[in-house]
């Protein structure tokens, strides 16, 4: 029986299957952040349980933490309680915890790969839908709810229905000025926001193979935005080179053994996927979203669809969405004024994103009339920005660097876009109110964000 990569990893982790029920899946690693874990730890206390495999769990706060003055106590008392609760829970239950200000703190989906905790062939979960990010290493990684976090704390297992498999092939080469974020937004626009629900995606093809590890992390991160349970890329020399020497990656003889195993992690030739779709990289241009879900994206030079091109049942939602954004069917977004730019998040908060942004703004000046938040995904990213002198380029162009965290991606801290204002954002969701009540989000890649940051308008970075 020829098997897909997903099948191989999944099947190696099945502890049991309930008759006519879900699979009991063994989890190699879990990450916990402060928002989706407190009720799970409470449940453990109520049941009088200890964590079953504490060495396989890593905690860090990221959602609530401020992006300035992290050396001081958090001002928002409710955020502070949530962050302190994670500290206490990690201590009480004996878990590794990288607290705010720790050199290993940052957005959990940036840090995990960065320090080699996320490895090929693993099953990996977190109470966070963007756990799909870690699939870029060749892992089966997916987001879970808090009840499931408690299951893993208690037994290192979750119950899951087995997803179907989908392969998304991207043939050919990406054009200059097109980033992996554009690739992902293009795929989501084609597949639609719910089009991969029930599936686990494998990304393949020439354009995917050519992506760096960080670019793959961006693509896999966004798998959930088309409803997929997760997305992965078969590990290859790019993956191995990325992992070699990372703090928690295997070393010496262990590395050699691991490498031999990891090299087997690929879909068999002729393995059948439940669904397979193919796109041509040459068709992809820089992308922007115009609506209130990530599937409402288009090429930056394109026009918003007209009402009559929308399926009748979907028209109410389409109109509601454009009303919220203050845009009209059929119009172009190029040249539209914006108010905020956000570079950061688990989608685009890595060093390559900052390099792309800095390369574009070098020798230019920030637009006067806008606010720009540049938020590294982790302290390690921040350190690298400074090591490469990127901070100096940014300062010269009139920008400031903030401290790491999830920040304006979901605005749980003070980084909120005011009602009615437009933000070009490298994050992952343009839902109503996502960046603050009434905020209007235009999702884009780091290059489009850079162009918007110097013009104050939606601008094609290629011209």
């Amino acid at each position, binding site marked *: 029986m020829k098997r897909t990569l997903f099948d191989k990893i999944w099947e190696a982790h099945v502890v049991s299957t309930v008759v*006519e029920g879900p699979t009991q899946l063994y989890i190699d690693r879990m990450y916990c952040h402060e928002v989706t874990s407190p009720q799970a730890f409470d449940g453990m206390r109520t049941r009088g349980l200890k964590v079953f495999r504490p060495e396989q769990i890593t905690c860090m706060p990221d*959602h609530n933490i401020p992006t300035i003055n992290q050396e001081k106590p958090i001002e928002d008392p409710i955020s502070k309680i949530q962050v302190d609760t994670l500290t206490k829970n990690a201590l009480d239950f004996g878990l590794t915890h990288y607290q705010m200000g720790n050199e290993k703190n940052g957005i959990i989906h940036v840090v995990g790969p960065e320090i080699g905790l996320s490895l090929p062939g693993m099953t990996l979960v977190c109470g966070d839908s963007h756990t799909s990010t870690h699939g870029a290493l060749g892992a089966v990684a997916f987001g879970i709810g808090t009840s499931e976090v*408690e299951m893993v704390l*208690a037994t290192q297992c979750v119950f899951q229905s087995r997803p179907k498999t989908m392969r998304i092939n991207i043939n050919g080469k990406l054009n200059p000025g097109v980033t992996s974020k554009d690739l992902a937004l293009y795929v989501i626009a084609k597949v639609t926001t719910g089009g991969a629900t029930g599936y686990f995606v494998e990304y393949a093809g020439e354009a995917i193979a050519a992506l760096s590890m960080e670019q793959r992390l961006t693509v896999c991160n966004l798998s959930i935005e088309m409803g997929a349970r997760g997305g992965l890329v078969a590990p290859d020399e790019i993956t191995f080179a990325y992992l070699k020497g990372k703090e928690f990656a295997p070393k010496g003889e262990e590395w050699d053994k691991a490498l031999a195993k990891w090299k087997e992690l690929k879909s068999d030739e002729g393995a059948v996927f439940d669904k397979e779709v193919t796109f041509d990289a040459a068709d992809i241009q820089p992308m922007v979203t115009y609506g209130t879900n990530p599937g409402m994206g288009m090429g930056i030079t394109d026009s918003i669809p007209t009402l009559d091109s929308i399926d009748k049942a979907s028209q109410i939602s389409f109109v509601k969405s454009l009303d919220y954004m203050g845009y009209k069917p059929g119009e172009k977004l190029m040249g539209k004024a914006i108010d905020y730019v956000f570079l950061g998040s688990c989608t685009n908060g890595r060093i390559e994103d900052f390099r792309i942004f800095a390369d574009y703004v070098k020798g230019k000046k920030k637009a006067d009339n806008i606010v720009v938040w540049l938020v590294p995904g982790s302290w390690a990213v921040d350190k690298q920005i400074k090591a490469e002198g990127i901070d100096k380029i940014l300062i010269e162009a009139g920008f400031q660097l903030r401290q790491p965290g999830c920040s304006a991606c979901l605005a749980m801290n003070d980084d909120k876009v005011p009602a009615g204002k437009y933000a070009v954002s490298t994050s992952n*969701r343009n839902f109503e109110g996502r960046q603050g009540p009434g905020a209007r989000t235009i999702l884009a890649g780091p290059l489009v964000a850079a162009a918007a940051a110097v013009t104050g308008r939606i601008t094609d970075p290629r011209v």
Partner: protein
Amino acid sequence: MEKFITLTSTIVPLPIENVDTDQIIPARFLKATSKEGFGDNLFRDWRYDKNNNPIESFVLNNPTYKGQILVAGKNFGSGSSREHAAWAIAGYGFRVVVSSFFADIFKNNAMNNFVLPVVVSEPFLAEIFESLKINPDNTLTVNLAEQTITNNVNGKSESFFINPYKKDCFVKGLDDIDYLLSKKDQIEQFEKARKAFTGHLV
């Protein structure tokens, strides 16, 4: 946990597609460390204006519609994995959500909180919305034992899927952790067998 067998109730209609969990419960309300109180902020930004006054046009503020069954457009619960969305729906008093399509993580979260997600066909869904325009007091009957949902305005019925294990959990009020804890020996055996060939992976 309250056991679930059958439910007949009036309906709250929400004919919007792709209702994401940020709408169900906005992120700024996720800072609580308990599961209580989320129902008050269910659909917060659709339900209240910026001065915290109820928005009359939103269905939860319309006294015509009430009940324990929420009926929504396709792809309900997309986006974030926040279980707070399920806590908000349960906390508000809904016991069933009906749609033609649910996002995966939301569906699991709902079931883990004994909120039953019922998937119906698109025509059946459209008929529910249409029938409510004529008679807002129309009811649906959800029969978990038979796995059927009936639109009582016309007597039309559809069957829905739930795996037998989860159905049993609903009927008996049991949760997954109880079951998993009973499997500890099996988990340890799995770990031993696995370490033999992938010790370095964990």
